[in-house]
């Protein structure tokens, strides 16, 4: 349960299990997706979040259900941490009508308007202006809530990144920009793409307070995210959080990873956020090994059930092909 409006993290046993459980859920979900993709159940592109779980889980802790989340095509973890039903996300991966987006979007376009989860956006940098707009709407309508915009470091090269940061700072909009810096934009290392590889410097050049945090440490992420979200909520304008993280898998499924060494991957795997956190908790006496087994068992069950749900879910009939291009005609009276 997200504790509202506090930057302190109460690391009770309960909270610890919650964090660990969410990370494990994401990890097993992603692994299952990899298997399903190989079996051609999931098609198109599949971008796995394995290794980066601490970011989504930590950041979501800082947000209320009323806040908004705007993410990228590598968003399964964010969707699950945000509380979207696992079965609906899985059905969406399959393209079934019971999916989060009626199956119309697939892996890269998970939307859930009830949970204020605005995708699922496949153009690098393309969603940043949307986040700015959502925050603008809140400010113009006097609503105090945060729009959390999550993107990779590759977006920093796109013009829309700069335009969005500038607009957010200029108009003092309540946006929490979260840059998940996993060091590779598809196959291009950050050193080969950015003249200034420190993401915080980019943000600061627009006058946006920025901080970097260890993205493999879920508690560190949570602490930083809570603090920054509070500052945004207090009306301080936008904030920028850089999560230094790493993806253990390729950019997408069909990627032989010619651009990085196995040794580097192995090095980072040693900092795997899940066993690292589990070990730390056991050392601190907050967790027993048996607890982890229980969590794994629960997660396995949830995922099995989600897969069964997706397998059995119906396909949208072809006759409905042309729906949802335009809004069906209803009363569109202007509010006088």
């Amino acid at each position: 349960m997200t504790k509202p409006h506090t930057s302190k993290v109460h690391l009770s046993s309960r909270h610890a299990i919650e964090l660990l459980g969410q990370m494990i859920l994401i990890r097993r979900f992603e692994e299952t997706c990899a298997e399903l993709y190989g079996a051609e159940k999931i098609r198109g592109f599949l971008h796995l979040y394995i290794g980066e779980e601490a970011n989504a889980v930590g950041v979501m802790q800082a947000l209320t259900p009323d806040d908004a989340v705007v993410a990228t095509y590598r968003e399964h973890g964010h969707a699950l941490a945000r509380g979207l039903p696992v079965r609906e996300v899985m059905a969406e991966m399959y393209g079934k009508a019971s999916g989060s987006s009626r199956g119309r979007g697939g892996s890269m376009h998970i939307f859930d308007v009830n949970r204020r989860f605005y995708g699922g956006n496949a153009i690098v940098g393309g969603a940043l202006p949307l986040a700015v707009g959502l925050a603008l709407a809140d400010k113009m309508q006097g609503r105090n809530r945060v729009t959390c915009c999550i993107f990779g470091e590759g977006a920093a090269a796109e013009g829309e990144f700069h335009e969005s940061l500038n607009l957010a700072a200029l108009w003092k909009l309540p946006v929490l920009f979260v840059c998940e810096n996993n060091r590779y934009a598809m196959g291009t290392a950050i050193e080969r793409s950015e003249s200034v590889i420190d993401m915080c410097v980019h943000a600061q050049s627009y006058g946006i307070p920025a901080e970097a945090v260890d993205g493999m440490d879920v508690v560190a992420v949570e602490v930083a995210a809570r603090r920054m979200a509070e500052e945004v909520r207090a009306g301080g304008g936008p904030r920028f959080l850089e999560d230094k993280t790493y993806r253990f898998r390729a950019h997408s499924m069909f990627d032989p990873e010619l651009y990085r060494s196995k040794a580097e991957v192995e090095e980072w795997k040693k900092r795997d956020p899940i066993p690292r956190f589990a070990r730390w908790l056991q050392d601190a006496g907050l967790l027993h090994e048996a607890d982890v087994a229980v969590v794994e068992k629960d997660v396995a069950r949830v995922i099995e059930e989600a897969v069964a749900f997706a397998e059995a879910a119906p396909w949208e009939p072809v006759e409905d092909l042309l729906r949802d291009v335009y809004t069906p005609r209803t009363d569109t009276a202007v509010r006088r």
Partner: protein
Amino acid sequence: MIEFRMPSLGADMEAATLVEWVKKPGDRLKRGDVIAVVETQKGAIEIEVFNDGVLDEILTNIGEKVPVGRAIATIRGMDEALGPALRAAVPVAAPEKIAPVTAPPEEAARPPPETRVVQAQITPAARRRAQELGVDLAAVKPGLGGVVGLDQVEAARPVIKERPGILFDEMRNAIAAAMARSHREIPHYYVTSTIDVSRLMDWLEAENSRRSVPARLIYAVPLMRAAALALKETPELNGHYEEGRFEPAGRVNMGVAVAMRGGGLIAPAILEAEILDMDELMERLRDLVARVRGGRLRSSELSQGTVTFSNLGEETADSVLPLIYPPQVAIIGCGQIAERPWADHGAVVVRRTLTVSVAGDHRVSDGRRAAQFLTHFQQLLHNPEKL
């Protein structure tokens, strides 16, 4: 026993070549272990297993190209005995093949059948019109640019072929439709007059007695002659009303109602009736009636009438209030000539009289104009020798 299949690693991956087995039969396998390396168009990729177990049998050799989905090894459970590979327990059900949706093709109008090869360029509209009219496209002279267009086809409208019976059925249907339309669309008004035609009939009888039988005139002829002349003075009763506009006709193409064999009236036109004298009129009338009886009329006779004259004839009825044939704007109807009481200078006498009605299209003319026509008509009939 589980079959391990070549996984799909990308939307455009169809197959891969096995380049290395990382595990061998008998090796323990843990979920996530790399089992082999395959070469794809993007490069070498390690493939992993998703089950715990023991690698039982390798089904693919190094260097073999394997399509996605084909079994390349079998994995048995820890407790299973060695044995031949069984089919995979989990059915990999392919999603229902959803046929690609294309917009259904528009129901194209059936093209008119070509009757023969034509050299000229023929527009689609012309082709269709030609079929409607029965025009032979090969005989149509092309217009500007060597193109046979609507104009060229309209100019080549054919003679109606001699097909009695069938032809007249079509005509009757057309007349029925025209009458319904007339009633529906034309605001009719009627002006009626009873005329003393004694003098006319006296003159006619005297005239006919001087003529040979074939040259004799029927009484309708002087009536038609008078009508044609009178119409020249009231152009609002002679012409066509189409698409909201009245086009007065330069000529009086007088449609004459003729009874058809088998019933029904048809009113083919005597063209330029106003310049024909009574002998010529009689000749045309005789010819028309013969051709109606024989089933041979020209389309121009049916379409170019600018007014119609309908004479009930002898021993029929006193008057008639006829319907205008669209797109004409008037029709003149005459009842039978009969002896009737008549007032003449205060005394009641018996005269041969005729009741004539003029129906007019109120969008074009009014009762006053029609009355003027009747007055003039009457005047002409009072001086039959001058017709």
